[in-house]
C-alpha cells in the first residue's frame, strides 16, 4: 500500500497530476490517497522531492 508521511509532506501538490488513476487528492493541507484506486505504479514516490511517499509491498518476501 501507499504510505504518506504527513509530517514530511510540504503540500506542494506536485504528485497529484502524475497519478494516472486520480488516486491522490490534496485537501486543505493533507494529501490523501484512495488506496482502492492506487495501482502502486510508483510515479508519486519517485517524484516527491522530500520523500514523503513510500510504497509498502505487503506480500514481498
Amino acid at each position, binding site marked *: 500500500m501507499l504510505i504518506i508521511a504527513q509530517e514530511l509532506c510540504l503540500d*506542494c*501538490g*506536485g504528485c497529484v497530476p*502524475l*497519478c494516472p488513476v486520480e488516486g491522490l487528492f490534496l485537501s486543505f493541507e493533507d494529501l490523501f490517497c484512495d488506496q482502492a484506486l492506487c495501482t502502486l505504479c510508483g510515479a508519486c514516490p519517485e517524484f*516527491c522531492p522530500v520523500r514523503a511517499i513510500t510504497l509498502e509491498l505487503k506480500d514481498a518476501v
Partner: protein
Amino acid sequence: MRYDAVVIGAGPAGSMAAVEIARAGFSVALLEKHSQPGTPLCCGEAVSKGALDRLMSLKPDLISCTIDEIKVVSPGGKAITVKHPGAGYILNRPQFDLELARQAVAAGAELLTETIGLQLSGETAFESLAIDNRKDGPGTIDARIFIAADGVESKVARLAGIPNLINVRETESLLQYRLKNIEVDPALIEIYLGRRIAPSSYLWIFPKSDREANVGLGVSTRLTQKFPPEQLLNDFIGSRFPGAIEAGKFCGLAPRYQGERIFRLKNLLVAGDAARADDSISGAGILYALLSGRYAGMAAAAFLRGDIRQEAELDQLYPKKFLDEKGEELALYRKLRNIYDRLTDDDFDEIIVALIEFFAARDSVAGLKPGQILAGLIKTRPKLLKYVRHLW
C-alpha cells in the same frame, strides 16, 4: 450560491482572471483552498522585470531585489557573469499573490478562502461546481462560466475531462531552501549547471537581500533515486554557505510537459500552470500565469456580456490572444528543452566558454535577442551548430 463566474485558485492566474471579470461588472467567486492567497510559498520568486512592468505597476514592498547581473557556472567551474541592468525582480511572492487577490476583491470579486473547488457538472455546459468549505462543509456554486486556475495540481480541469495528466518522465523534482545568515550580492542571480549539481536541470541562487536567498535545484525525476534532491542541495549548501540557517523548505514540480495544451472545454477555461503554460526550460510560470489569467478573464467577461454566442467562439479571445503573444516563445522553449536534455557536462563547459568569448566584446546583454546570441555563438564556434540545428 450563484455567481456569473467562478474562478478556482487564487494564484496569479486566478486573481488576474477575477479582476477582469469583476471590473466588467459581473459577480465572481474566487476560490482559494488555503486560508490566505500566496501561502504556502512554492516558488523561487524570480521574474523578468521588463515583462512584469509592462503588465502592471508594482508597489515597492512586493519586490525583494532588483537583478542587474546573471552568473552562470559550468560543471567544470567556468563562470560567466553577464551584466543586464534591471533584468529581473525577486518578488515577495506571498505578498504579491495577496495583493493581486486584494485587487480582485477591490474590483468586486468575492474571495472564498478555505474553500476547495471539487468537480464540475452540467448537461450540455458546466452549470455547477461542487465545493468543500473548511467550516461549512460541502456545497455547490452555480455559474455561467468557470475558470480553472488551480495550479499544477489542476484537478478541477482533469475531473472535468481535460487530459492534462503529466507523465512522470516529463517532470523535474524541485527543492528549495530559504537561507539566512549568508552573504550574497542582492543584484546577482547565480545558476549552476552540471550532472553532479542538478542532473538534467540547474541550481539557482536568487537573493532576497544581501543576507538571505532562495537556493534551490531541480533533478530530472527519472534520476531522483540515484541523485536525491535533498542530498545534492545539502552538499552544495554545505560547501558554498557553511553556517547558513535554513528558514524555510519548499518543493514542487516543474513540468516538462510535451502533450497538447488544452485551454478550454465547453464553458470551462483553464489558465496558468493548470493549462501547463510554463517555460519548459526554466520552469518559470509567473508571467504566463498572469497573462493567461488576464486573457481568460477578459474572454469570460465577453461571454457574460453576450459578445460571444457560442462557447467555441471563446477560443478567439482565449487562448488565441495568449498564444498570439506567447505561443512561439513557449514552443521554442520546448525545443530548447529537448536539446538541453541531450547536453553533457563537456557540452555545457564548451557553451560557457563560447559565451565568455561572445560577451568579451560586449558590456551588457541588454537589448540582445536570444536569436542574436545564438547566431553570435555559432559564428565564434561553428561546432555549436550541432546543438541548435534541431531548432529549425
